């Protein structure tokens, strides 16, 4: 049953992403994208990564996408109904390139046959241990990166005296 669930969710993700791409109204696009992230999170959950699924929803769909929404509304980009979708000519080259990459990696992926070690459930505990023991330095660095980002964003976003 989980198999069927996976495939359904996969279809939902893809359709959501496609709609997000082709939508000319940015807010609509973000909503579609949130949908696809939700289904992706459930896929994560199915793939024995509940923590990541939670984080996906909280951080990604909750914080990052909301941030996008804030900025779009703040910028007030004019009348969204009259916004232009990119012309068909502009779609052509990206589609070709995307198609090439899709096909190539797809072929690579399909030819892969790896032998699983042990398909066991990965518990939160195991995750935490790996995170803080093996990748402790990375955490420090990531936190520093977040600090840089905060400082940068503050600086860029400040209002100058007119």
């Amino acid at each position, binding site marked *: 049953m989980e198999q069927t669930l996976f495939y359904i969710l996969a279809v939902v993700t893809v359709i959501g992403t496609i709609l997000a791409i082709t939508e000319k109204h940015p807010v609509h696009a973000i909503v579609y994208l949130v949908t696809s992230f939700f289904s992706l999170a459930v896929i994560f959950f199915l793939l024995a990564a509940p923590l990541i699924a939670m984080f996906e929803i909280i951080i990604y769909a909750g914080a990052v996408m909301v941030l996008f929404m804030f900025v779009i509304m703040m910028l007030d980009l004019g009348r969204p109904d009259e916004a232009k979708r990119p012309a068909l000519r502009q779609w052509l080259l990206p589609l070709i390139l995307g198609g090439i*990459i899709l096909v190539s990696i797809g072929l*690579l992926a399909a*030819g892969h046959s790896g032998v699983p070690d042990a398909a066991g459930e990965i518990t939160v505990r195991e995750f935490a241990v790996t995170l803080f023991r093996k990748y402790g330095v990375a955490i420090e660095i990531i936190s520093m990166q977040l600090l840089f980002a905060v400082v940068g964003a503050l600086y860029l976003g400040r209002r100058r005296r007119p």
Partner: protein
Amino acid sequence: MLMNSGSCGTKMKICLELIILLPLLGGIANALLGGRLLSRRGSEVMACAAIWGSFAATLAVAAVYSSPVTLEIASWLAAFDFNAAFSLYLDPLSLLLCLMITFVCGLIHIYAVGYMRDDPSFVRFFALLNLFVAAMLTLVLAGNLPLLYLGWEGVGFCSYALIGFWYKDPKNATAGRKAFIVTRIGDIGLGIAIVWLFQLFGTLSITEINKMGFLMPMGVITALGLLMLLAAMGKSAQVPLMVWLPDAMAGPTPVSAQIHAATMVTAGVYLLMRMFPLIGVSATVTAAIAVTGALTAFYGATCALAQRDLKRILAFSTISQIGYMMLGVGAGAISAATFHLLVHAFFKALLFLGAGCVITALHHEQDIFRMGGLRRTLPGTYWPFLAGALCLAGVPLTGGFFSKDGILGAVWLKGGILYGGLYIVGLITAFITAVYTMRMLLIVFGGEIPLNPPLSKGEVKPLPRIMEWPLIPLALLGLCGGIINLPDYLGRGLLNSFLAQPGSQEQILSHSTELLLQGVAVVVALVGMSTAWLRFGGLRRQLRMAEAQQQARGLNAFLLNGWRVDALYGLLFIRPYVWLSSLLWQRIDEGCIDDSLDSMASLLGRCGQWLGSWGQGRVSLSLISMAAGAALMIVWLAWMVL
């Protein structure tokens, strides 16, 4: 190192070398030292002394001459089996020509001292004049064909330099170029003939080639003869290569006298005479020479009839008279042609020098219809000029009469339809010659001094003595030159016997035929002169002067422009050539070659710009490029793996 067929002492050897060396050294010394170390008088004296010294050496050689002599001075070209040394060959023909050249050129040098009195570039002038004489003597005395060709080219170069002497006027430079280029066309024939002769015979010595002529088939001989005829046409200004001589009158008058009357233009005839034992056996060649000569004689005479410029009349007259000499060579009468060559040199140089006197006296006026009455104001010029004109017209008992008649007699003797026709042409030309000569004489010297001042350029200027007295020896030689070769009924022809090759016999006319022919010639000359008198003499002269103020029309214009041959050549050769060269210049050189370089450069520039356009700051472009690169790498990876 002497190789001779007769005895030749060291004195003779030295004198022979001096004949050529003195003018050569004089020219070089003048060129190097002239303006700097020597005064003007010094340069002039050195130039004249060189020529007169050469004349003295020639006299010394003539005094001890007994039989043909070959003298090898030094080796020159020697490679594999090709051997051409500086070797001189002295035989009656070259001895006579040396005497004539040195004497006439000596007189002309003295004349030129007076003529170029006010000219600042006298150094260049006298150096070139001396070099010219040296080259001409080399040509005449050459014992092998390369040395002859050296002299040939030397006279061509000096002629070019002297015609364009006042080069600052583009017309003069163009005339010099024209002379050089047209004679070049003829020189090609001589060049090919020389190389071919070497290939055929293995030697280029003139005496040996002349002996070996019987070895070759007639076709080869004919071809060789026609090539040499082409060379002679160029150098001696025969039809069709005669267009340069009238324009060559742009040079100073002493140059015209020396080069284009007495010496260089006879070089072509000399070549044919020299090689006659080789090429004379072919009837085609002799017929071609004779026809060329007769046609040219007729052409020159008719054109001289309509000319206005005094020097151009004389130039066309020279063309015509050299045509006579060629006619003589074509009829096989070498001695008659030589006789005419010598006497013509005397009286034509005289006429040119006289013309120079007239022109200088009238402040460089050259249009005869602006002259008149000069027999009273320039008597020192008038009488010698009259003597020369009488020789030219062929008045009985002058040297010109006997020489011209000798040629016509030889043509008559040859017989056959062709030569009979050529004899008629020769007679008609003699008639026209008489007419134009008297026309020139009557218009220039006849009448009174022009009454209205606007026609003339001012009072008649007195001439320096030095310009007038060289005319006198020439006049005497012209008038009395007939003594050299009297017809048989009057005595032995000295020249004939001098020039006779041992073993060959020239046919002799019977006395009665000769008298008859001479009578016909006398009648023709007298009729011609009286026709001219009727048209141009006395009161009718005024009418002609008035008529001449208008533009020439019809037949007059046709003859005035030399049968419009210049225009014809311009249409046939020069315009296509100019068109082709401008095409090559603009379309190909600038259009293709330059443009291809330019467009290659601009192509590279555009390539660079196009490549640089990738670096515009457009983000979308960078993204696309990145995606394309990634796609490429991934495709390659997939290819490798699968």
